[in-house]
């Protein structure tokens, strides 16, 4: 198709106008007659005007054709290509969305989470025979996805023990199957379901508002006097009822053993096949004025032998617990009573009690708390008498937690602890009878 560039058309029009303009005066002078000259000039001017009009029309026509050609060319060159590109992009986006949509089912990796803490104080918060700075624990936990109903949880921890050295412990290792909301079965090593703290707060101290657990509820290798871990089977579940939920736990496992002054959960099994077992029943309010309140009762029986002596104690423990856990408050109370029988010792049942109450306020600036705890442990009960930290005591404590960010917190606690039945073994271990503590702790999760 014939086309004239735009700049060429413009030059042609300008040249024509210029020639006409220059020719007019020359013709008039040559005529020498004004009237004739004017007539001639008028005629030529008319012709020139017609020519200009014709050229203008032609230029417009050509410009119109050229523009149409360009538009058509652009449409012809970009339309199908663009549509194809758009289709490819849409297809790609759909693929990405589909891949992301099914990402939950992939098995490309296992995230590792955990907790860690360090501290400093005039006493070690768990072992009062040590003073100064301390490393607390490095706690890794894994919750691999093994399908819709299969659950697994492992918790591997590096922590300082009573002898001051770092040890490794598989604190929890449990594999479960979820039949329904009302029934999940776990097998392995788990936290014994009693009270509230033992299953709610665990080893990661970042989880707790307070700097540490009540002394008698510490883990076995941190001075606790109760079997906080069980190796066995655990049935647990929850069912909606009224304004809340009924929660239950039933479990059976290896009977514990007193080993070196601490309660040992016998990971490999027991020498004589002795078992322990128990249950917990709780009600959790999830609406109304009592929203956040959970109350419950628990009980277990255990037959604890001794690795050092021939002591064999039948434990019968009952407890109650209440927790008020809201955005503003955390109040916890637990109480236990022990009715123990030393099967190879003096006849009769030994009664002991242990309880604590903690009040905490969750302010925007920090979480202050106060706690009182008391354990009256019969030293004629060989179960307590053989334990390194089995003496009766009471402790008053006040503390505060500051969250530096959502993953780290620093806590401070002032406490007084008084041992009620100071024993010879306590002197041997270097434990103080009455002591005031100033403690600081830096705890993180990751």
């Amino acid at each position, binding site marked *: 198709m014939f086309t004239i560039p735009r700049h060429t058309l413009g030059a042609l029009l300008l040249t024509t106008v210029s020639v006409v303009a220059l020719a007019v005066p020359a013709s008039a002078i040559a005529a020498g007659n004004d009237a004739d000259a004017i007539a001639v000039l008028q005629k030529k001017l008319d012709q020139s005007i017609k020519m200009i009009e014709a050229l203008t029309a032609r230029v417009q026509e050509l410009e119109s054709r050229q523009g149409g050609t360009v538009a058509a060319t652009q449409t012809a060159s970009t339309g199908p290509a663009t549509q194809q590109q758009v289709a490819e992009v849409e297809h790609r986006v759909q693929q990405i969305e589909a891949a992301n*949509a099914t990402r*939950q089912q992939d098995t490309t990796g296992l995230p590792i*989470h955990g907790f860690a803490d360090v501290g400093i104080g005039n006493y070690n918060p768990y072992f009062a025979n040590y003073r100064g700075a301390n490393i607390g624990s490095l706690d890794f936990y894994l*919750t691999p*996805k093994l399908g819709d109903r299969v659950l697994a949880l492992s918790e591997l921890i590096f922590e300082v023990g009573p002898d001051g050295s770092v040890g490794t412990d598989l604190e929890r290792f449990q594999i479960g199957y979820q039949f329904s*909301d009302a029934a999940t079965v776990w097998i392995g090593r788990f936290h014994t379901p009693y009270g509230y703290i033992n299953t709610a707060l665990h080893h990661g101290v970042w989880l707790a508002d307070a700097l540490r657990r009540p002394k008698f509820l510490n883990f076995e290798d941190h001075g606790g006097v109760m079997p906080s871990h069980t190796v066995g089977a655990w049935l647990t579940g929850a069912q909606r009822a009224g304004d809340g939920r009924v929660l239950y736990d039933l479990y059976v496992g290896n009977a514990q053993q007193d080993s070196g002054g601490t309660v040992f959960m016998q990971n490999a099994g027991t020498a004589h096949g002795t078992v322990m077992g128990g249950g917990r029943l709780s009600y959790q309010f999830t609406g109304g004025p009592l929203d956040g309140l959970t109350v419950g009762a628990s009980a277990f029986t255990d037959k604890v032998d001794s690795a050092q002596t021939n002591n064999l104690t039948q434990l019968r423990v009952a407890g109650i617990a209440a927790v008020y856990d809201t955005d503003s408050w955390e109040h916890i109370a637990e109480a236990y009573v022990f009715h123990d029988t030393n099967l190879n010792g003096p006849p009769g049942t030994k009664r002991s009690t242990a309880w604590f109450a903690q009040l905490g306020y969750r302010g925007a600036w920090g979480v202050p708390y106060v706690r009182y705890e008391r354990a009256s442990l019969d030293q004629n009960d060989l179960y307590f008498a053989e334990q390194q930290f089995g003496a009766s005591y009471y402790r008053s404590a006040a503390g505060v937690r500051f969250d530096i960010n959502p993953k780290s917190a620093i806590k401070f606690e002032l406490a007084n602890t008084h041992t009620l039945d100071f024993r010879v073994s306590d002197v041997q271990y270097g434990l103080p009878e009455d002591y005031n503590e100033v403690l600081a702790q830096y705890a993180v999760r990751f």
Partner: protein
Amino acid sequence: MHRPTIALGVALVLAGLSGAALGDDVYVICNSDVTLQAAEVKDVFLGEKGFAGSVKLSPADNGSAQTAFLGKVLKLDLAKYGSIWTKKSFRDGTNPPPIKASDAEAVAYVKQTSGGCSYVSSAPAGGVTVVGKF
């Protein structure tokens, strides 16, 4: 501009933003094999309800609508939501819901996943069950 004026301006902008986020509609959707009541949505996304009848629920968060969802349905902020799941995961051995990036991803996930539930910011075209509009 004086500092109080700047502060007031910033506050108004933030208030407007949060108001816009909370003002957005949220549609909770589930796979067609799920029968669920709107009142149960909170339990599902906090891991307290894992089954709808015999169907195992698999909730997924939608990052593009999460702020509005948490504020309107769960009455939580993101930090509190994360804290709850950290504690629950550590206690129960469960994992928090996976996060989808957009409404389209959330809808695709729900369609493809038996027991799948999520939420979107506009009414879904179809192929999913709308449990509730919040």
